[in-house]
Structures are given as C-alpha cells and as structure tokens.
C-alpha cells in the first residue's frame, strides 16, 4: 500500500515541475475538473457515513445523558446518571463478565482449532480443497438460521448432542435452560461457525512460509516439534495477531446466535454487551442506558483497534 502510493508520487512529481507555462495552466484546469469529479465520486459515501455513522455517535453521547422511554415526547436530562447506573448495576457487571468469558473462550478455541485444521490441510492430501470449503462454509451461513438448527441439536431429549453424548454414555444437560450450560452452548455454536475463517487465514499464512526455512532447520537436526516452534510459530505471528484482533472485534458483535438461542438468558447468563444494548433500547425501552452501554462497547472496540494500528504500524516500519 505504502509502496504503491509513494511509487506513484515519485513517477508524477517531476512531470509537473518541468511543465511549460501553457501546460501548467492546463494542469490547473484539469486539476479543477479532477477535484469536482473527486467530490462527486466521494460524496454519496461520505454523506451516508455522516448521516448513519458519525451523527448517530454524537446522538449516542447526547442520549446517554438523558432518560427517555423511546415513546414520550419528553426527554429528561440526567447528566451522568446512566453511566453511574451502569457502574453500580449488578446486571451490567454480569454482562461485562459474560462478554469477557464469551470473547476469551470463543476466540481462544476458534483460533486454536483453526490452527490445528490449517496444519492438517497444509499436508499434501487429496481432497483438501474440498475439505477447506466444507470447513469454511458455516462462516457464510445466517447466524439466525444456524442458531435455530443448533437449538434443535441441543434439545436435551431428541437432539444430536444428546445422541453423541449417549455414545459415551453421558446424559445431555438441558443446555439452553441452565445458566451454567447456556454460555458453553453459545460458544460451541460460535466456534463451529467461525473456526473455518481462522483455518483458512492460517492456511494462507502457512503456505506463505518459505520452504527453505524448514530445510535449514532440518539440516540443523530440528525434529518436527522443534521446527514447528522455531519456524512455524514465529512466521505465523503477524497473521495470528491479525486473526486475534478481528476475532475479538467479531465476538463483540455476535448478536444473532444469542438472540435466537437464549435471548440473553437464562437469568442473564448469556447477556453480552451487544445484547444488552439491544435489550435496554428495544425491549426495556430505556434509551439512555442503551446509549451509554453502546458507548462502553464502542470504547472497548476502539481500544482494541488502536492496539492493532499501533502494532501493525510498527511491523510495517521495522518488520
């Protein structure tokens, strides 16, 4: 990206400087036309962003200082009460804990399994492209529809999970109605749906590792495990970092599975930040608290994005 831009600038700069008077006037005329065209090309996008992305964020800040039930014409200004409420609210603490639990488990497991699958598919096996497609397919399926399918799978009496657990003579818990089992169930669905993305990206990273690194390690007498530790892991670290960040941001936005399977329950055990934002706004009709919670969510995502920018910048400069 950087190379392409600077390369182009180097190529065009001398031409402009050595221009004669008449062509420099033409240049200005062309430039004027180009500015107009630039604005025309960019305007729809920027206007839409202004209306539906930036303005709402300002509105969010305003709403978060108000008490409003989404219906009445009166909005009360309550200052920082909504934030104070969140800070003291047991449910919200629970929500933060759930979000943390869900994110760590879902991201950790899908990256780990994704790496295992990628290592396997990196072997010279027949049909591996087909296997890659199967592993990736769930990523593209509607979370709402998939959530319904998995609700059936988790049915404690007639579901697939009960059947599979039966093979090893375990009885199935009532997954979606038990506070301690609902979140693991959601995590299983999320991992099933998203590990293919991690696998496919890891696989691309593995295939980009130069073969001679492995050959050199082999000459040095490194065994399989040692080659994995000294070549594969360090060479994969940039892509692992990329996956880590995108996966964390994705889990923060995971809504459809939770809405369909548990609606945040039982007793708030699967109520995560994004679900809480929805529930406060559109079920409890507490607009102020929803807006405040959405800003907390935004702040968390912002921090993670800034960490990413920080580190990738360093990689571009020094790596």
């Amino acid at each position, binding site marked *: *990206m950087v190379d*392409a831009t600077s390369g182009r600038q180097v190529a065009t700069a001398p031409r402009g400087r050595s221009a004669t008077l008449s062509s420099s006037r033409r240049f200005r005329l062309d*430039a004027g036309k180009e*500015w107009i*065209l*630039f*604005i025309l*090309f*960019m305007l*729809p*996008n*920027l206007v*839409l*962003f202004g*209306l539906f*992305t*930036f*303005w*709402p*964020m300002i509105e*969010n800040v305003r*709403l978060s200082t108000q008490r409003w039930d989404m219906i009445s014409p009166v909005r009360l200004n309550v200052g920082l009460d909504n934030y104070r409420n969140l800070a003291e609210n047991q449910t919200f603490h629970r929500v933060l804990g759930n979000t943390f639990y869900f994110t760590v488990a879902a991201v950790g497991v899908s990256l780990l399994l994704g790496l295992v699958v990628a290592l*396997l598919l990196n072997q010279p*096996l027949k*049909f591996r492209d087909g*296997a890659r*497609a199967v592993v*990736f*397919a*769930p990523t*593209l*399926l*509607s979370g*709402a529809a*998939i959530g*319904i*399918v998995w609700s*059936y799978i988790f049915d404690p009496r*007639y579901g*697939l999970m009960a*059947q599979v657990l*039966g093979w090893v003579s375990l009885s199935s818990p009532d997954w979606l109605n038990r506070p301690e089992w609902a979140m693991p169930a959601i995590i299983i669905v999320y991992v*099933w749906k998203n590990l293919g*993305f991690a696998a496919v*990206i890891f696989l*691309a990273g593995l295939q*980009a590792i130069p073969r001679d690194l492995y050959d050199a390690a082999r000459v040095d007498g490194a065994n399989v495990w040692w080659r994995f530790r000294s070549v594969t892991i360090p060479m994969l670290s940039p*892509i692992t970092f*990329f996956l880590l960040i995108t996966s964390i941001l994705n889990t*923060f936005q995971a*809504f*459809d599975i939770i*809405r*369909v399977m548990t609606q945040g329950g039982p007793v708030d055990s699967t109520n995560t930040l994004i679900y809480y*934002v929805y529930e406060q*706004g559109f079920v409890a009709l507490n*607009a102020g608290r929803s*807006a405040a919670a*959405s*800003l907390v969510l935004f702040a968390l995502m912002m921090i993670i994005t800034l960490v990413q920018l920080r580190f990738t910048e360093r990689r571009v400069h020094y790596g």
Partner: protein
Amino acid sequence: MGKLSIQDQRRLNRAAGYLAMAVIVLLIGLPVWWMISASLKTSREIYTFPPDWIPRNPRWSNFEDAWQSAPFGRFYLNSIITTVVGSALEVTNATLGAYALAYLRFPFKNVVFAILLAALMIPAQVTILPNYVFFGSTVYDLIGESWVNTYQAIILPGASVAFGTFLMRQSFLGLPREVLDAAKVDGAGHLRTLWDIVLPMARPVIVTFGLISVVAKWNDYLWPLVITQTESMRTLTVGISSFYDLEGNTDWGVVMAATVFVIAPLLIIFMFVQRFIIEGLTAGATKG
C-alpha cells in the same frame, strides 16, 4: 515389535492425515446434515430416540407446511430487494471512492482518507438506537412520515462502505500504469477510463467484494430486526426467527424445513464460487 520402514511410516502418516480430515469434515458437516435430514422427518421420527440419520420416508410436505405457516415468499422478496439494492449501492460507492482515491487529484485527500478510516472503526451495532430514532422521529419531523418499516430504512445505513473502498483502491493501484497512461494519451476521460479499463481489469476484486457484500446483507439480522415492524417487511433472517419464536420446538421437522429456506441459497451459491470467496478473503488478510 519390528521397526517400520520409512515408506511404511509415510503411509501411516498419510492414513492418519486422511482420517483426521474425514473427522473434521464430518464434525463440521454434521449439523447441516442434521438440519436437512430433520426437515424431511415426520414428527414421529423426530421424537424417536436414538434418531434415524436418514429419514425412512422423506416427508416433503414439511416444506409446504413451513411455507404456509409464515409468508416466506414475502420474506424472500424482501431479502432479495434489500440485498440486491444494498450490495449494488455498496459496490458502486466502493468503486467510485476507490477510483477517486487512487487516480484523482484532490487537496484534502488525507482528510477524506482519515474520515473513511474513522468510519471503519465505528461498527453498525453501536449506531442502531440513534439510527432508529432518526428514521422514526427525525424523518417524521422533516417530511411528515416515519421511515421505520420501509425498504429505504433497511438499506440506507448499510449503503456506505469503507472496507471495500480501501480494498479496491489497493487493487486499482496495482493495475499496470502504462495501460492507464496510454488511455490518457488517447484522450480518454476519467469516466471512460473507469468504465472501459479499470473495471474490466479489476473485475476479480470487484466480484469478490460484491460476494462478501451480498453474504453480509443476506445474513444481516440486528438492524432489520429493529427497523421492521410488520410481517410484510421482514427479511428472511428476521422472519425465520420470529417464526421460531412463535412456533417454538413444537414441530422440529417444519422448523428445520424453514431454516433450509434461509440457508440453501447461500450454500448453493457458495458451492460454485467458494474458491473465489476464500482466495479473495485470504488475499485481503495476508497482504493487509
């Protein structure tokens, strides 16, 4: 125990590899198979345990029953309209924006760049509430009618695009400079260059982004859920979830048939274009 020859060892490794691959494919594929097989089961078969893996007498009428218990035809229509129009707008915005960023002079290009980057960092999920209020009260104050529960309200917030603009700009900059210069010498204006030269050459990335966009719109759930109010405006994803809220787990066969309605179109498209999607995505990720 005799020592294995290197060849035997290799054969063993390969066998283990195939076995592991088969296990993974089965584990990932099983839920989809479960859905399809249940969609063809009678409720008697659903409620027998242990279940049959293959329904004995496929009951196709589950699909008819599902189709009649909610307006799925209407849901399809709504999903197709919002996906096609939304993706078309997104791809157009991304293409025009990428061309402008890549080839047009503009004094405040850095500012525009920063604005797009900032937009990239604000996820749609945190703007649902103010956007809902916008279509409800602000639009009402302006034109005297609310836009809640309309197509334009479903489509517009998702019509702008930052990711795709950056993705395409990247690929436009990689196009051979000589061809573009030659076009300029021939007196081709920017519109002509964009249409006749850049678009055909950048077709792979445009198609890839278009597919990603279509998948995202088709599966979108949170925004259509809050902005639609009547059954006649619901998209498939919202329709299926409210169908499930009502129907519950009374007849899994019919419910599974209904989920097939939502999942089948994407699964079929994916079978034909999977290489395109996977390779496009990985290229974007590994180069980034």
